[in-house]
Each structure stands twice: as C-alpha cells, then as structure tokens.
C-alpha cells in the first residue's frame, strides 16, 4: 500500500511526464529534504544578486570611454625575478577548486558514515577557504596601497574598474568568509555526533553552498580577470 509519507515509492516516471505528475499530484513536488530545497532557493536568489553585479559591471565597462585597466597586468606579480601575469588569481582559483573537491569528498564520506574522514575533509575545505580569503586580503592591500586603486578612480584608466572590482570580489569574499564559518560549525557538529540520528543531509546542504561559492568564482575569474 502506498502512503503519502512513503517517499521511496513517490517516484513516478522520468522526464516531462514525471515533472507534470510531480506538479499536479496532491503531494510534495520535490523529493528532497526541505533544508536542501531551501538552500537551493537561497542559492537561486544569490545567483540573481551576483548576476546583477556582473551585468552592472558589463554595462559600465561597455560604456566607459577611458581605457579599461588590463587585469592581466594589474594583477601580475614578480616572483623570484619572473614576471607572472595573474599568478595570484590563478593560485586562488586552484585553492577554491581544491576546496570544492575536498567538500564533494566530505559529502560522500558523510553518507558512507565515515565520521572521522568527513570532519577532516570539511576542516580542510574551510582551511582552503580561509587561505583564499587571506590571499584576497593580500590582493586588495596591494591594489589599494601600491597601485592606488580606489572605488572612485585609479591611475591606470577607467574609474569604474575600482568600484566594480571592490563590489564584486568583496561580495564574493564575504560569501567565502561566511562559508568558512558555516563549514566550521558543521564540522564541529559532525564531530560531536549531532547528525547520527537524523542523517547527514546537512553536510550535503553545506556542500551545496560551498560549491556555489566556487561556481561564482568561475564566472568572476572569466569575466573580471580574463576578459
């Protein structure tokens, strides 16, 4: 007998027919934990925020009559006598991708019930996130104190460069910082055994947030640093 609470039999058919019956049937439309659905809704709203920021950046860059500062040169560093374009940003990108990988593994091991590895992997993710924020702080101070970039102007060209840079990377950095705190709390709760009774969906939900932060960076890296 099929009951409403029995989620294991709620699945009907894949594809369009399944979607239509999911929406029209008198039961839950999404076969996911409510927390996960709420996280997805939040991430969708966050997608709009970052999209609007990046679209705003596109608009002011398109309409700027002064030359746009070349990000490849602005973010170049000289390491051991070698002039390397964008090198810090590349390292930051790799740090964030590595952290996304460790987070994916953490979710996997959480569902496998390996508490120790889960805690280690989440802690590693948070640590990589913290190092990303550290590198960003270095990048910002170099830009502010050495290059003289301000939200209202800079010596290299279009004034809009500073305002969009600080707004977009600042908002992303804020997300990474919040993520590091969020992950630290989840790691502690996993270690304490808080989720043993109710399952490890919470680790997957935290993972969704973290992957989203990495996802946003993919777009910032392409549109702001490489374009």
């Amino acid at each position, binding site marked *: 007998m099929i009951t409403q609470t029995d*989620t*294991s039999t*709620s*699945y009907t058919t*894949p*594809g*369009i027919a*399944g*979607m239509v019956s*999911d*929406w029209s049937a008198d039961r839950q*439309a*999404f*076969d*996911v934990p409510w927390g996960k*659905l709420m996280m*997805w*809704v939040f991430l*969708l709203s966050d*997608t*709009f925020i970052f*999209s*609007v920021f990046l*679209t*705003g950046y*596109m*608009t*002011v*860059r*398109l*309409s*700027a*009559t002064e030359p746009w500062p070349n990000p*490849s040169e602005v973010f170049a560093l000289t390491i051991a006598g070698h002039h390397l*374009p*964008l090198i810090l940003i*590349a390292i930051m*990108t*790799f740090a964030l*991708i590595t952290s*996304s*990988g460790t*987070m*994916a*593994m953490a979710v*996997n091991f959480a*569902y*496998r019930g390996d508490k120790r590895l889960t805690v280690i992997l989440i802690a590693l993710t948070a640590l990589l996130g913290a190092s990303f924020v550290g590198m960003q702080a270095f990048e910002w101070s170099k830009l502010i104190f050495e290059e003289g970039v301000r939200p209202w102007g800079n010596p290299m060209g279009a004034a809009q460069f500073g305002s969009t840079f600080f707004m977009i990377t600042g908002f992303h950095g804020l997300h990474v910082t919040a993520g590091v705190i969020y992950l630290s709390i989840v790691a502690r709760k996993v270690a304490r055994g808080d989720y043993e009774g109710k*399952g490890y969906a919470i680790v*997957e939900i935290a*993972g969704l947030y973290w*992957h989203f932060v*990495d*996802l946003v960076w*993919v*777009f910032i890296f*392409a549109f702001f*640093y*490489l*374009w």
Partner: protein
Amino acid sequence: MSDATTGQQHPIGIYLKVWLLLFVLSTFSYLVDFFHVQGYLRWTLILAFMFLKAGFIVAIFMHVAWERLALKYVLFLPLSAIAVLIALMAIEGDYTFLTRHLFFDP
C-alpha cells in the same frame, strides 16, 4: 531507495575525475591569458572553459545531474530572466558609450 532517505551517493571515482578535469580546465583558462591569446579566439576560449567548469560543478558536485526534472526547472527556468537583463544592458551600455562620444568628445 530514494534520495530523500539516503541522500546523493555516488562512486568516489566520478568526483576525482571531475576534480581533475576542473584543474585541467582552470589551467587552460589561465594559459589563455598567459599566452596573450587575443580577439574572438580569446573570448570563445574563456567562455567555453567557463561554461564547462560551471557545468561540471553544478551537474556533478552539486548533484543536479541526478535530481528530478521538477527541481531542475525551478533552478534553470528563472535564469532566462538574467539572459534578458544581459541583452537589455548590453544595448544600454553601447548606447551610453555612443552618446558619451557624441556629446562629450571634442
């Protein structure tokens, strides 16, 4: 068993492969800048690597590939509004650029 009770469980191998792929794609996009690729080839490569990376993160790491169509539509249909915004603002940006040249350039 359904996803609600067991969560998204997949072999570790697929995560490792996607992880490696993301590293390779990031390296490629960095090399676009390193070798000073310019013009349309640059923008095509940047966008291609960006969408590939984003796609793998969303599909595999965020498990959307295994979610139901009902959830996928909730996530992706609203994004069409952003596409409209980008198109409108591109027109607007070009217009502002042209009028600035017309009225503020000697």
